[in-house]
């Protein structure tokens, strides 16, 4: 195995595309080193992206924030501006692992690991976040929603590396929230999860809504019909029931020791309801 600490995104992309063997991109390493240890993967080349100038920075951009691909989630959680603008994204990112893992793990890494249960991903998708990728043919932008392709798989092409994620600007009356279910309070993987991002109109009703579920399908799921159910409402009980039903209908989960199909499906709807209420309150809505 070779280790390369790339000094530019270009150098990283070129090294990754030139390597004919197995490659891994190293940001926080909290998934990659576990894969190495367990022998799941034996890379020929590891490209450490943390030495790329600016890649560990959070920079305000057009009313939102550009989050470098190597920003540890602990650092994200200490950034008052991001927490104020996208609290749901940050609370998802901060649920991953322990204090020690938070000191290293990144949102871009969580996204590229390709787990449908990644806690950072539903919030990013609900936020309409945009990833910036450096690849062999140059730079391109890609909605975060289009990156997961299935368990452990992404749509990234050979040689491509995410260098940052843009959390866009949002109107003043907007809020988001993320909830997951695990059988204990810490250090576990979501059995089901839900992220909701809302914008309110001048009359206090929901003007725009995006509902995203995690851990209930091969990738995170954007539930368009669940978002549509909230439009024009103040989240009364009948609306929330339609939201939950739409979420349940969108579930296609696995059945395993951590949760049955029925449990994951039901839980996803419940979490979406609760996350919607939190997002609504954060947006300044009142019932």
């Amino acid at each position, binding site marked *: 195995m070779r280790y390369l*600490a790339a000094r530019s995104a270009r150098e990283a992309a070129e090294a990754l595309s030139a390597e004919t063997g197995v490659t891994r991109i190293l940001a926080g390493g909290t998934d990659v080193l576990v894969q190495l240890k367990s022998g799941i993967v034996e890379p020929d080349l590891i490209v*450490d992206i943390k030495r790329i100038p600016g890649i560990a920075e959070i920079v305000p951009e057009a009313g939102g924030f550009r989050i470098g691909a190597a920003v540890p989630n602990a650092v994200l959680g200490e950034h008052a501006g991001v927490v104020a603008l996208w609290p749901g994204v940050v609370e998802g990112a901060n649920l991953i692992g322990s204090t*020690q893992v938070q000191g290293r793990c990144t949102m871009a890494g969580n996204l590229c690991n390709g787990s449908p249960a990644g806690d950072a991903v539903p919030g990013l998708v609900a936020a309409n976040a945009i990833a910036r990728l450096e690849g062999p043919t140059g730079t391109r932008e890609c909605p975060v929603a289009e990156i997961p392709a299935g368990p452990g798989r992404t749509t990234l092409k050979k040689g491509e590396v995410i260098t940052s994620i843009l959390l866009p600007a949002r109107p003043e009356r907007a809020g988001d929230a993320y909830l997951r279910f695990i059988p204990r309070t810490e250090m576990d993987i979501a059995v089901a999860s839900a992220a909701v991002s809302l914008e309110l109109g001048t009359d206090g009703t929901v003007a725009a809504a995006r509902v995203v579920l995690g851990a209930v399908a091969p990738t995170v799921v954007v539930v368009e019909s669940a978002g549509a159910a909230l439009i024009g409402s103040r989240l009364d009980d009948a609306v929330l029931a339609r939201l939950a039903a739409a979420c349940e209908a969108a579930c296609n989960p696995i059945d395993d020791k951590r949760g049955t199909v029925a449990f994951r499906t039901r839980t996803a709807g419940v979490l979406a309801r609760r996350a919607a209420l939190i997002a609504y309150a954060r947006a300044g809505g009142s019932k």
Partner: protein
Amino acid sequence: MKSIPVSTTINGDPCEFLCAPDETLLDALRGRLGLTGAKEGCGTGDCGACSVTLNGRLVCSCLVLGAEAEGAEIATIEGMADGDELHPLQRHFIDHAALQCGICTPGILVAAKALLEKDPNPTDEDVRYWLAGNLCRCTGYDKIIRAVQAAAAEMRGA
């Protein structure tokens, strides 16, 4: 595999070592530098026995490559006492019998010190969440929480 030269600062002292590209910081600390305070419990970031700080940030050294430590400042349990004088956390862990077999203790001490530097006056719940990634199979955690709180009180001058 070609060895990689790494130049770091460990517990305030400049330190250089060679490591393999796939060698963890934990293995480099223990195997090459004789710093055996950090323990390998799981090797996959679940147990926290290998906790150290890397540029002031609490991490599992089993989830860091040795090569990544180039230019970094590392603090380990070996740097916690001031010569023969134990750190208040170390003293209170002994006084409260907050350990039995001792495998988890270095990691918990390093993690608790990082917490108290960030928050000198945590609640019990804060301590429990902060230490959620440090597993102890002996104590049941209660004595650990009490020892951390006693050390925090002493360090605040309370």
